[in-house]
């Protein structure tokens, strides 16, 4: 009987009690919690996220904000034993300002979400409280900090559930994809009279035509990357990205590769992001840090 109840209990009602306790007034961004939940079953997953809607001209930041700003932060608090994936970050955009300041982030709308896995032995009739702590900085000509807490309760029941399958599927299409045969690349260290190391990522577009390229290193606070330049060379088939890099003093990278995203704009204007790990660490480790240079 219990198994039957579990089987026919697909619909979940979410009572969204939106307690917005903003410490800073930020009218430039609206935030809402959204979910794609068909049912709550042990060892199964559902998606929960925050939809950010920016007023015209405003943007918020990617996990590496670039030269300024601050990463947008979404923390979900769930009952014990519910596991969460890392936050999913759709392909960002670049915002360049006077003074050669380049930021990475989002304008108009972005969904940041996680996959939540229900623990084994979860009581399907139990309510699930969910809390989201959100913080961001939005900028246009000026910048404004925002933070919000949204509380919600997932209540199993016979009422229609909250389905946002289409929304989540649409945003899943905007995630960086694993590179296939679209292009090949290799990274080389280039001699430069500079205290930072210079690198070039050589791109060979085999099966796609690139009208434009953009590069987003997820280097965080460990690696200093600057003077990023792009070269598309012969129309569409080859390209290069050059940049300078150095390790910030006292920082270590846990992996020899830095995660980056290469965004290729095709002739139709569509932007596709490819996950592109770039190996620079061995070169940087061998390089004397600037402060020890005689």
């Amino acid at each position: 009987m219990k198994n039957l109840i579990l089987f026919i209990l697909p619909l979940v009602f979410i009572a969204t009690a939106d307690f917005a306790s903003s410490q800073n007034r930020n009218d430039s961004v609206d935030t809402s919690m959204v979910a794609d939940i068909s049912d709550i079953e042990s060892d199964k997953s559902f998606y929960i996220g925050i939809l950010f809607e920016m007023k015209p001209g405003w943007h918020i930041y990617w996990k590496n904000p670039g030269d300024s700003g601050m990463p947008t932060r979404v923390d979900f608090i769930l009952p014990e034993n519910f596991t969460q994936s890392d936050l999913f970050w759709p392909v960002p955009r670049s915002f360049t300002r006077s003074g050669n300041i380049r930021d990475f982030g989002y304008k108009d709308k972005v969904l940041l979400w996680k996959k939540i896995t229900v623990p084994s032995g979860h009581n399907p009739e139990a309510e699930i409280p969910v809390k989201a702590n959100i913080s961001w900085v939005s900028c246009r000509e000026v910048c404004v900090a925002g933070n919000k807490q949204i509380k919600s309760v997932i209540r199993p029941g016979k009422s229609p559930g909250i389905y946002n399958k289409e929304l989540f599927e649409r945003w899943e299409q905007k995630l960086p994809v694993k590179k296939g045969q679209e292009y090949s690349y290799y990274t080389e260290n280039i001699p430069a009279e500079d205290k930072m190391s210079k690198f070039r990522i050589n791109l060979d577009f085999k099966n796609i035509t690139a009208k434009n390229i953009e590069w987003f290193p997820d280097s965080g606070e460990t690696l200093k990357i600057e003077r990023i330049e792009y070269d598309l060379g012969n129309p569409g088939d080859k390209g290069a990205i050059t940049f300078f890099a150095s390790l910030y003093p006292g920082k270590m990278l846990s992996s020899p590769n830095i995660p980056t995203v290469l965004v290729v704009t095709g002739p139709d204007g569509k932007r596709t992001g490819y996950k592109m790990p770039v190996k620079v660490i061995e070169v940087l480790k061998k390089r004397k840090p600037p402060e020890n240079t005689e």
Partner: protein
Amino acid sequence: MSAPLNKLLTFIIFSLMFTISGHYSFAIDNSAKAPGFNITDHTGKNVNLSDYNGRIIVLEWTNPDCPFVQRHYRENTMIELEKEYSDKGVVWLAVNSTHYMGRDENSKFAEENDINYPILVDKSGELGRKYGAKTTPHMFIIDSSGEIAYQGAIDDDPGGSMKPSDRKLYVKNALNALLSGEEVKISSSKPYGCSVKYKK
């Protein structure tokens, strides 16, 4: 070509080169000589870097409209550091390269926050671009020999969410090292804050 025309052309070419290169402010290298300046502060007084030869100088890029700066001034971060280290001979200068803020706005900021140190009015952004200042705040420390000893964030807590005792205090640690004649171990860090609002 006549000599005067030659000179004029040379002048034009060098001016253009300066204009083009000046638009791109790349970070200044550590251990480089700190670029000199001669600029007016919020009280109308002229401030020249050479006035402070032989002293340790902190340059703090600021913008009263920036939420990161606002938080630090609510928490008295810069005010307390300046008080502590000016007693030890360190010079603290704030710089505002915001293109839409002049002397009046900076004076108001100084008055509202009990700022006793000069705020250099860099509306044109020339000083900011010379140093490669990207954020507010963005900190530079010049050692007593006139070289850049530290540049970057004031601490490692952009969100202001850490316990103060857990923060890495980059500027404080660098000043302590310089005053003790020791090596500045962390001589640079990623600055955080709003972008400097340079003139377009």
